[in-house]
């Protein structure tokens, strides 16, 4: 009974680590010997969710493969802030080619490793949402369709942040960006269905598709580890809030990611071979207002001329996710304990 799972209830259950856990039960991030695949001195903004997400994901991948990781990077914030000559923050073999071709470059790396009989080294490709859902979309779909042995990670901050916060196909409705200004009768980003890449990826019937946020490290690391157990094309979509682009406080990054999940706006789940195999239930459900109202990119929905209609519309989107993935569980606690 003393060995009852301290893990996921009681003191600091959801924290990164827990001194009461044995080493092998600990997250990668709680370990002194974590690789810090992306090291200090990078030029990301204060509170950058992408810098955090990248370290989380790659450190986990490093542990899962005993350090046998090669990373390919699309152009974007992550690439620019990590490798401005003469300094790089990467501690792993890393290749940047172009904005739109990361999946294909990764295919090439994987092919080279395969042809050289190097089975241990695994390939991770990473890009922001622009490099994934927009300019890199063709190559990504091709990589999926060929089922190349690549884990592709999208760090989704819902816009082109590196170029000064412009709209991408991952920008949510009503959000203000430099190319969807808050002017005219329908301020902010126009309503569209957006590109739901995780579901598009699932439609390729690839071995593994998962979503995660920087707010739940345990979940993120588990998913990276699962992805590394599998071969073929795998896709991980990580929500990484951007204080600069979202107009949020630098210390809110994780909090906002959490609200995105708890409101249902960002469903966290995993799927194998095109079928959903698990979802992270909402633990403390919040209305979308809680999420929207602390981001200046949505300020116009609550300002002088508030737009309850738009907020309601966004709430509908959240409710649709909740229904689609069954995010709300009557007995959330015990569910969460069961996990």
């Amino acid at each position, binding site marked *: 009974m003393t060995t009852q799972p301290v893990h996921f209830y009681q003191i600091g259950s*959801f924290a990164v680590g827990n*001194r009461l856990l044995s080493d092998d039960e600990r997250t990668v991030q709680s370990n002194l010997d974590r690789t810090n695949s992306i090291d200090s001195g990078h030029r990301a903004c204060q509170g950058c969710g992408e810098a955090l997400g990248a370290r989380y994901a790659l450190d986990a991948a490093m542990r899962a493969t005993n350090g046998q990781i090669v990373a390919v990077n699309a152009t974007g914030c992550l690439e620019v802030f990590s490798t401005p000559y003469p300094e790089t923050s990467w501690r792993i073999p890393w290749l940047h080619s172009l904005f739109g071709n990361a999946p294909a470059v990764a295919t090439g790396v994987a092919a080279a490793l395969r042809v050289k009989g190097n089975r241990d080294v695994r390939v991770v490709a990473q890009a922001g949402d622009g490099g994934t859902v927009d300019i890199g979309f063709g190559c990504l779909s091709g990589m999926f369709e060929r089922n190349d042995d690549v884990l592709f990670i999208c760090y989704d901050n819902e816009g082109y942040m590196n170029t000064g916060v412009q709209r991408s196909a991952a920008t949510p409705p009503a959000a203000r960006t430099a190319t969807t200004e808050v002017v005219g009768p329908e301020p902010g980003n126009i309503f569209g269905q957006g590109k739901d890449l995780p579901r598009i990826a699932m439609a390729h019937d690839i071995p593994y598709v998962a979503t995660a946020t920087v707010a739940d490290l345990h979940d993120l690391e588990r998913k990276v580890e699962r992805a590394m157990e599998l071969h073929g094309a795998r896709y991980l979509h990580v929500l990484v809030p951007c204080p600069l682009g979202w107009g949020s406080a630098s210390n809110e990054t994780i909090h906002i990611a959490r609200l995105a999940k708890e409101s249902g706006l960002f469903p966290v789940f995993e799927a194998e071979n095109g079928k959903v195999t698990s979802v992270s239930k909402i633990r403390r459900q919040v209305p979308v207002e809680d999420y929207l109202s602390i981001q200046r990119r949505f300020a116009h929905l609550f300002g002088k001329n508030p737009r309850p209609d738009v907020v309601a519309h966004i709430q509908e989107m959240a409710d649709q996710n909740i229904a689609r993935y069954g995010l709300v569980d009557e007995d959330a606690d015990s569910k969460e304990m069961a996990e």
Partner: protein
Amino acid sequence: MEIPFAITLDVGTSRANHTGSWRVERPVYVDRMPPCNDACPAGENIQGWLYEAESGNYEAAWRKLVEENPIPAIMGRVCFHPCETACNRVQVDEAVGINAVERFLGDLAIEKGWDLPPVGTDTGKRILVVGAGPAGLSATYHLRRLGHQVRLVDSAPQLGGMMRYGIPAYRLPREVLDAEIARIVAMGVEVELGHVVHDIDQERREGGFDAVFLAVGAQLGKRVNIPAGDSSHIIDAVSFLHQVADDDPPLLGRRVVIYGGGDTAFDAARTARRLGATDAVIVYRRNRERMGASGEELEQALGEGITVRWLSTVNKFEGDRIVLEKMELNAEGFPEPTGEFEELDADSLVLALGQDTDLSLLDQASDVTVEDGAVEVQASMMAGASGIFAGGDAVPADRTATVAVGHGKKAAHGIDDFVMGRIPAQKDRHELATFDRLNTWYYADAPRTKRPELEKIRRQTNFEEVIGGLHEDNALFEARRCLSCGNCFECDNCFGVCPDNAVIKLGPSQRYQFDYDFCKGCGICVKECPCGAIEMVPERI
């Protein structure tokens, strides 16, 4: 490999870029005062000993506990645990069962025969402690640890004061009481029982004591004038309970009326039931809300078949009938007579209307102020400048054993300063770790399946001994429910959530430190610290 110029770079080189210079605020680690510690009259470092208990290190936990309070097994039973009322966890699900864990640790210590910490090196100072109740025993313990010799006197034949003569055995088994007292006595204490001090100055002079601690308690049951026939049997609760404790219980008959609404009234009532009374009726002039005793006690009493007559006073007691007058509360909430009467069959009436202190021993004492039956004391618990200290029920404060234990500790340190000629050191308290400073997301609720069991145990704690306390596993569970308010419990959150790897983990129980070369001051660590043990402070720019 010889790498191409500029296009290709050697790994990790960005550490040359000290992004700490971007910072306008810096995070710093702090320790805050947890509300439980803050609320504990005995000044226990509750968060501290729970921290040890969490890892199953019970002896360390117990040792931390007895730093402040030498009688945890007793307190784990009789304390009304204001700590749990203050506990921040109330706002997550429900309070941590601190009292239950305390009792568990106390009992375990007795079972394992752990010794109290060693006595301090002899200072040659002699201290007289008058009264061997919780205050006296607590003072004795702390004085011995400070290296002073202690003479402990009490008028009663046994040590324990009200813990023995006021609190019934079903709440505090005598073997527990004896065991914890014996541990203190074993520290080397001159004990004289059945000794009544008449003149404190004389006693001090003759004994050559450097200081005196008065912990005489309040053993005189208040009496009121109730018209009664000669045959009618009236007794005050203090005497009643004392006689029970002496195994010489008075005969009260089958129908007992207890007059009063405090803890003592309930102790008396429940004791009467245990002595065979079929009807034990508590008569109280106010209503439930204004009752002195804890709701917990009321529940337990009602559970035992005791009945309460609210808003009633005893008007007279003739033969086997008591006449009650109905009362009503006025605007200020004071009870006023209504002129309505009713009758109640009774064989005896127990008066539980509060206690008075016998301070006659101070009559000769110079510059000691006694105001409505209590000794005026300063922060150091010294009454005047004479080296006479007082605590427990003898001074104006809540009359609980826990308060008394706290007084004893405080007085011991006051006495220490006094006899060693030290100016009392000003202890600055940490800022309070309020709930709003916590990030409770990181604390999961206990699984629903587990809760009933825990609640049962929490309820049992102050209840009949026939039902035991926590056992090791659920004690561990309970301890681990602690939020560690305001004090780092090494959850690695700051270490993990820093986007700049600017937190250095120092290893087990070494906590962390910030790497200000790289910390950009984003503040995520502060926001995501579960227990609020980090704060942002402006940089000097």
